[in-house]
């Protein structure tokens, strides 16, 4: 048996130290001049979206993928103030991040609010006490997506359809509890903007009935897979984010907003209060809100969604896939995510857990 030589030992230590340093370096934002550090969702990561901005301003966008605002908070907790410049967020979290002192105030005049529909520019989602903190960039719906070869569109115009025993075992439910609980509220004739604990027993019963009729409840990938493979015909919580990007391959998949209404998701961009790169952050948001940036963001390879700016440079075919002409009606008939407080969030999550455990 040979003992390890001291040379081998020192080489090993060097290799371990180098690996540790490289890992640490990769997880930190870059600080080179002309670098914008962005915490972003997957739909902002296409090179075709970022390259025109990088080329025009001679900058590098250093992005870190996040799946939720909670992911962003976890990363911020391990970073120094000023490490990150821009964040993509679910606009229902604007108030939450502002209360934590994380967001910088923005100037409305810097952004094309005149071409953003009023309901999307809603200050309830973008502002706190009259001050703008996030700019809406993309939205869509958590309503019902379905397979037109198996389910008639006319039937899906009624929000109660997924509860119909006729479709037992052919329904999938998206597992994000906020829009699903709000959707059940709509089906009960309640105002999804004003859910209180008094509504929970009825909501629980309605959601349990939906679960009993459904084949499965699952995350984004699982429910998309179920709908596209034909394992289910109806996806409650689905929308253009499931069907629009795959119209060429699956023209039989579509979505609608029932007569009783639907739930609307909306994402926006904000600049961190501690950012040392605010002017570049403003330029980035302006680029994303430009007609060119909006078209690329709306048709991202990760998922499609409606651009907030009505001037988005989309082709007629892309507009058709996104149901462009239906948008005024869809926006009128849909409700944004409920304004969340930590207490309400915990209550809704506990309600969802009870539904998932229920038979």
């Amino acid at each position, binding site marked *: 048996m040979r003992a390890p030589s001291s040379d081998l030992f020192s080489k090993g230590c060097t290799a371990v130290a180098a690996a540790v340093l490289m890992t640490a370096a990769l997880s930190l934002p870059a600080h080179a001049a002309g670098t914008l550090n962005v915490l972003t969702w997957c739909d902002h990561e296409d090179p075709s979206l970022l390259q025109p901005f990088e080329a025009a301003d001679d900058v590098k966008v250093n992005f870190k993928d996040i799946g939720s605002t909670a992911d962003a908070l976890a990363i911020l907790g391990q970073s120094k103030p000023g490490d990150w410049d821009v964040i993509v967020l679910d606009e229902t979290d604007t108030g939450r991040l502002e209360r934590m002192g994380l967001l910088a105030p923005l100037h409305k005049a810097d952004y094309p609010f005149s071409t953003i529909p009023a309901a999307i520019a809603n200050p309830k989602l973008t502002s706190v006490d009259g001050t703008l903190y996030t700019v809406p960039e993309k939205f869509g719906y958590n309503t019902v997506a379905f397979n037109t070869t198996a389910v008639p569109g006319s039937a899906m115009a009624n929000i109660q359809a997924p509860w119909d025993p006729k479709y037992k075992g052919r329904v999938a439910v998206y597992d994000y509890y906020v829009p699903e609980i709000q959707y059940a509220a709509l089906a009960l004739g309640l105002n999804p903007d004003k859910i209180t604990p008094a509504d929970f027993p009825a909501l629980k019963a309605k959601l349990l009935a939906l679960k009993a009729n459904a*084949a*499965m409840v699952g995350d984004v990938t699982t429910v998309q897979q179920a709908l596209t493979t034909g394992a289910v015909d109806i996806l409650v919580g689905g929308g253009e984010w499931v069907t629009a990007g795959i119209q060429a391959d699956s023209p039989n998949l579509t979505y609608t907003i029932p007569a009783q209404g639907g739930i609307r998701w909306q994402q926006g961009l904000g600049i961190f209060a501690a950012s040392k790169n605010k002017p570049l952050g403003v330029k980035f948001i302006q680029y994303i809100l430009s007609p060119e940036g909006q078209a690329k963001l709306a048709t991202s390879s990760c998922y499609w969604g409606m651009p907030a700016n009505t001037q988005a440079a989309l082709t007629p075919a892309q507009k058709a896939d996104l149901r462009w002409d239906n948008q005024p009606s869809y926006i009128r008939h849909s409700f944004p995510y409920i304004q969340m407080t930590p207490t309400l969030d915990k209550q809704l*999550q506990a309600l969802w*857990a009870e539904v998932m*455990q229920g038979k």
Partner: protein
Amino acid sequence: MTSRTPPAGLIFALPALLWVGLFFLVPVLIMVGYSLHPLDQSGAPGPLSLADYTAFFAEPAYVQALINSVITTLIVVAISTCLAYPFAWCIACIVPKKYQRLALLAAILPFWTSYVVRSYAWLLALSPVGAVNKALLALHLIGHPLMFAYNPQATEFGFIHFFLMLNTLTIYASLTQINPRYELAARDLGASAWRSFVTITLPLSIPGVAVGAFLTIVLCIGDYVTPQILGGFRELLLPQLIMMQIQRQLDLPMASAMSLLLTVLVALAYVALQRWLRMARL
């Protein structure tokens, strides 16, 4: 003058102790600290309190998730052990020595695929439009697709496929360490094949069974991927509940409290199996 030197055993154990201290004890202590400071109304850690633990036990759906995790783990341990034992025994005792490596390679082949990919592969096979239903329909054995996926049984199936191989390896390793002369001596003294197996081979292979069972408990009770992909949320397991705390709210105190409960369960399993192993050696 006398010089005090640390015992040689301690010096040799120091790297391992440091490793365990840095990468197990310190993280566990951090989690304990987090779990005792529940989030306040602003979302910041509040004062020292057991509120998250009491909130956990006050919510029946959360307690049910804990119970579901324990039941699922016990089912998986029982079935995978029962299936793995004869498989391992066949490889160790029946398959000729020169083919044993090949048999083991075949057994561990599924491990070459990513865990997530393997779970999705099972979903594709078990779903209503999957290969299993298509085959049964083509053979006219069923009239309409059966729901093999999206339920707790599918989760257990996915787990068993994975842990069957793990248990096979640990039991095989244990069986090959048994001196074959013990069984030969028993047979010479007139014991039947079954009696020599029950009285000699099985007791001596218990350490391998226990190691496999413990590894299965550790990996199964904390697994998030398989129930998420195959389970269809028919019932929640505790790891899924932990992810719910983190994904939306970043409620690290509640997630830590739940994770510590899982750690306690694993520790209890270790104590139980350790005791059993000692008894087996008597």
